[in-house]
C-alpha cells in the first residue's frame, strides 16, 4: 500500500516529455524516403532523353516508323523492335490470361485444399525462377520441342494463314511469346487466386442459393466481384512481359525484321538493348539504343496510365457514380 502511493507521487513529479519532436523527424524522414522514388524516376527519364537526343535529331519521327536497323550504314529505326515487343507480349497475354484465370479458379473453387496448396506453392515457385533459367530452358528444350512438334503441327493445320508459314526454326517470335506466357502466368495466377479468395463467402452462398452451378457462380459473381483486382493482375503481367529481356533474347532470334510469320526470328526492344550495347561503337548507334530504351519507357508509361485509368473507372462504376 505504501509503495504504490510512493510510485504515484513519483509519476506526478517527473518532467513531461515533448512528443512532437520525434514525430516531426519521422515526418521529414518519411517524405525524404518517398522522394527517392521521384528522383530515380526523373533521373532515368532525364538520362534517356539526353542520350537519345542525337538519334532523334538525326532520324526525327522516322526513327519510330522505319524498320531499317543497319549499324554499318548508320541507319536506325525502331519499328521492328516495337513490333516484336508488342507481338511477343500480345501472344503471351492471349495465352496467359485465360490460363491463369482458369488455374486460379481451380485452386480456389475446385481443388481439394491439399492439392490447391501444392499447386499454389508450385505457382509461387514458378514466379521465383530467374529469367535466365527460362531463357536457357527455352533455347535448349522448348525451342527444340517447338521445332520438331509444335511448329510442324501448326503449319500443317493452319499453314494457310500467313502467321504460321515458313520453315520451323524453333526459335522466333512465337517461341518468345510462349516463354513470356509461362513467365507472366504465375504472377497473374497468384494475384487472381488471392482476389478470388477475397470474395465474401456469403456472396458465393447467395449465388448458389438462387440455384447457380459452380461455373455460374464463378463466372457471373466471383470473377465479376474481383474484376478490378484481376485487371490489375493482368496489367502487372503485361508490364513484365513488355520489359522482359533475358529469356526473350535467348529465343527470339534477334533479327531486325518485321515478318508476318510468327515462326520467323524477330527482336524486342529489351532484347536489342541487351544484345547490342557491347557492339555500339559509333555515337549514333549508342544514341539510337538509348532512343529505343526511351520508346520502351514510353510504351510502359502509356499502358500503366491506361491501366490506372481503367481501374479507377471501374471503381467509379461500381460505386454507381457516373
Amino acid at each position, binding site marked *: 500500500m505504501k509503495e504504490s502511493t510512493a510510485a504515484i507521487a513519483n509519476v506526478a513529479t517527473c518532467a513531461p516529455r515533448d512528443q512532437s519532436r520525434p514525430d516531426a523527424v519521422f515526418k521529414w524522414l518519411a517524405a525524404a524516403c518517398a522522394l527517392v522514388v521521384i528522383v530515380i524516376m526523373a533521373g532515368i527519364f532525364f538520362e534517356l532523353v539526353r542520350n537519345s537526343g542525337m538519334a532523334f535529331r538525326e532520324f526525327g519521327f522516322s526513327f519510330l516508323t522505319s524498320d531499317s536497323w543497319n549499324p554499318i550504314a548508320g541507319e536506325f529505326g525502331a519499328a521492328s523492335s516495337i513490333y516484336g515487343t508488342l507481338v511477343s507480349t500480345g501472344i503471351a497475354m492471349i495465352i496467359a490470361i485465360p490460363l491463369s484465370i482458369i488455374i486460379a479458379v481451380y485452386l480456389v473453387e475446385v481443388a481439394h485444399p491439399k492439392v490447391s496448396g501444392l499447386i499454389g506453392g508450385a505457382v509461387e515457385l514458378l514466379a521465383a525462377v530467374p529469367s535466365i533459367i527460362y531463357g536457357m530452358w527455352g533455347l535448349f528444350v522448348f525451342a527444340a520441342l517447338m521445332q520438331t512438334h509444335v511448329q510442324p503441327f501448326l503449319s500443317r493445320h493452319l499453314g494457310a494463314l500467313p502467321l504460321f508459314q515458313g520453315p520451323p526454326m524453333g526459335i522466333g517470335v512465337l517461341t518468345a511469346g510462349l516463354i513470356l506466357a509461362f513467365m507472366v502466368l504465375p504472377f497473374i495466377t497468384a494475384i487472381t487466386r488471392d482476389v478470388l479468395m477475397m470474395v465474401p463467402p*456469403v456472396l458465393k452462398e447467395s449465388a448458389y442459393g*438462387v440455384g447457380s452451378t459452380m461455373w455460374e457462380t464463378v463466372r457471373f459473381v466471383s470473377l465479376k*466481384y474481383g474484376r478490378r483486382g484481376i485487371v490489375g493482375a493482368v496489367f502487372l503481367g503485361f508490364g513484365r512481359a513488355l520489359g522482359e529481356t533475358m529469356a526473350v533474347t535467348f529465343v527470339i532470334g534477334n533479327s531486325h525484321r518485321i515478318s508476318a510469320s510468327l515462326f520467323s526470328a524477330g527482336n524486342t526492344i529489351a532484347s536489342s538493348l541487351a544484345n547490342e550495347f557491347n557492339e555500339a561503337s559509333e555515337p549514333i548507334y549508342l544514341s539510337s539504343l538509348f532512343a529505343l530504351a526511351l520508346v520502351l519507357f514510353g510504351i510502359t508509361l502509356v499502358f500503366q496510365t491506361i491501366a490506372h485509368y481503367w481501374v479507377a473507372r471501374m471503381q467509379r462504376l461500381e460505386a454507381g457514380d457516373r
Partner: protein
Amino acid sequence: MTATEERVFVKPPSEVAKQRRGEIEDASRLPVKVKIRSLNFYYGGQQALFNNSIDIPAFRVTAIIGPSGCGKSTHIRVYNRIFEIYRSHRAEGIVEIDGKNVLSPVTDLLKLRKKVGMIFQRPTPFPMSIYDNIAYGIKLHYRASRGEIADRVEDALKRGALWGEVKDKLSEPATALSGGQQQRLCIARAIAVEPELILMDEPCSAIDPVATSKIEDLIETLRDSYTVVLVPHNMQQAARVSDFTAFFYKGHIVEFGPTKKIFTNPDNKQTEDYITGRFG
C-alpha cells in the same frame, strides 16, 4: 420516395392474416411444408444440431429463436443444403420438403435451391445492375425472351416492395442502393425464381429500424404466397411477424408452437426463462 407511394406495392397485412395472428392455431392441423426428423449436423468433428424434429407449416411464418450459437442458422442452412459448399459440414437425418427428403443424394441441388430461396444476414447484391441482379436467377432457370424477363423482373421487384424506388434506375449498380433497399432486392431476387419456401437468416441485422419495418411489412405480405422460415434478429421481431416459433437451445429444439403461446404461456421452463430474459 414518400411513404404513400411506397404503400402502393407493400400490401397492408390482410384482415384474414391479422385475425389469424390473433388466434392460436394448432400446427398439427395445418399442411406441412417441411418435415424434419432426427436431424444431426456436424462441423467437422463437432456436432452442432442434435436430433432436431419439427414440422414447418405451409404458408405461415415460422421464427426460430434462441441464444446466439444455438444452431438457428445451422438449422435453416440444411433446408437448401447450402452448407454443402463447405467440405467439412455434414448433415444426417430426414428433411422432407413436400414429402421428398432433400438430404437424399439424388436430390437436384439446383432445383432445390430454386424452390428454397435464402436471404442472408448481410445484403448480398451481385456485382451487377439492379435489373441484372433479378434477371440473373430468371435466366438460370427459365428459357425466357427479353420481354418475359423484363416482366418477371418488374413483378419480382413489385413483390419485393422495391419497384417504386428503383424503376427509373434499373441499370445502375445494385451496390449503390442503401442497405435496406439491397436487402429487399435480395428478397426480390429470391422471389424471381418462384420459390415455395423462403429462408431468412437475420435479414434485418445489418439495416436500420426504418428499413427493418419495411422488410417486416414485406414478410407480412409474403406469407400469402410462400412459406417463410425466419431467424429474427431479436425476440420482438419474432413476436411481431411470426405465426409459429421454435425455441432452440444448444442445438436442440426445446419447444415449438404458436408464437403467441410461446411468448405468453410456454410449456417449457427453459423457454420461459429465455423469453423473460433470465438468460441468453
